[in-house]
């Protein structure tokens, strides 16, 4: 567990901090996610993806739940996340991060913003539409286009 923490604590903490915007709350989520991983390590299926991506998504979900002050809706066993190549190697990891950020940086701002509002702020498409004043259909299209752009960048 100590090795896993050394390798993935930054990812978990960063996602939690991005969603919650509070270091104390992010630390709680960090604790919760790793304790859950320690208690039930078999919920992660290595054959179906990387641990980094899996941890990042379950952390986001837990953080959103915490943000909304409600009980967790998504069990970590339900999540299926896969990223290739594996991010275990630090070189690959750095390269991967650069590529992801590069793709996001190159996206039109409204598209990237819609993605981030949905993922990091936990807003529904209706809420995003209300907040931005854009039509629902437009928000839907932007979000889908943004995800497909990420996929295309990694030739998936």
């Amino acid at each position, binding site marked *: 567990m100590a090795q896993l923490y050394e390798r993935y*604590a930054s990812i978990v903490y960063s996602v939690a901090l991005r969603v919650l915007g509070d270091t104390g709350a992010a630390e709680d989520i960090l604790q919760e996610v790793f304790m859950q991983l320690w208690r039930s390590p078999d919920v992660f299926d290595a054959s179906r993806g990387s641990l980094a991506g899996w941890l990042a998504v379950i952390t986001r979900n837990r953080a959103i739940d915490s943000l909304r002050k409600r009980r967790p809706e998504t069990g970590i066993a339900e999540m299926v996340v896969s990223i290739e190549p594996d991010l275990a190697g630090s070189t690959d990891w750095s390269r991967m991060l650069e590529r992801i950020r590069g793709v996001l940086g190159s996206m039109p701002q409204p598209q990237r913003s819609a*993605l981030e509002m949905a993922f990091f702020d936990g807003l529904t498409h209706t809420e995003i539409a209300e907040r931005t004043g854009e039509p629902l259909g437009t928000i839907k299209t932007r979000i889908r286009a943004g995800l497909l752009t990420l996929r295309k960048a990694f030739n*998936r």
Partner: protein
Amino acid sequence: MSAHEQFADDLALDALSALGGEDRLALEKHLETCPACRQEVEQLRVDVSLLALSVSGPTPPSRCRERLMAAIAKESRRSRARLSKPMAWWRVLEWGAAVAAVALVALLLRQNRDMRGHIAELESNSVAQQQQLVQAKELMATLTSADAVHFTLVAGKTPPQPQGKAIYVRSSGTLVFLASNMPQLPPQKIYELWLIPPSGAPIPAGLFRPSPRGSATVIKPPLPPGVEAQTFAITIERAAGSSAPTSQPILVGTRG
């Protein structure tokens, strides 16, 4: 890409957990019957994980690691404690089983001892009964033997007189009758023994013919139990016997 374009945008929102209301319900219903769209959602979730990783950078404070390790150590101790409880429980069971086994052995030994005592008692009773049986057989053989010689002791020069001795147990209706010096009878006649109760008719108690020496026995004739006997009497009846006396008694004896 899914063949169902009408759900394509909703699939992306669903992967982000950003689809709500009726749109979400409609999509969930569609996903139940559409493998292609389910596969597309899986792909979109992978895309979402890329988005999640994009914010990686900040490092948690060192206290987070200490806090996590402390929590894991604490929970490990609890887990060990939980695991140790069943072991202690099983040990209690084992000890209980051992105690029960010892108690069972003690019980069996006691039962065995009691059983041995019972068997010894039965054996003893059996030996006694066998001795009694042997004595009874010897008695019967003596009484009924053709070689038996009967001696009647009388006072002075009194000639031997016919006489009988009846031994009767009322409760069981058992009767043993011994006769001696009985005169011989013609073939068409027989002696009949009667049990005479205090009231009521005489009850037939057996037929007999005396031996050439005048001796006779009647052993356990069929009699109803519980009948009080006031008198026993002997009459001479026709060879087949009679259900009621047809002649005057030649011998009569009261209880004495």
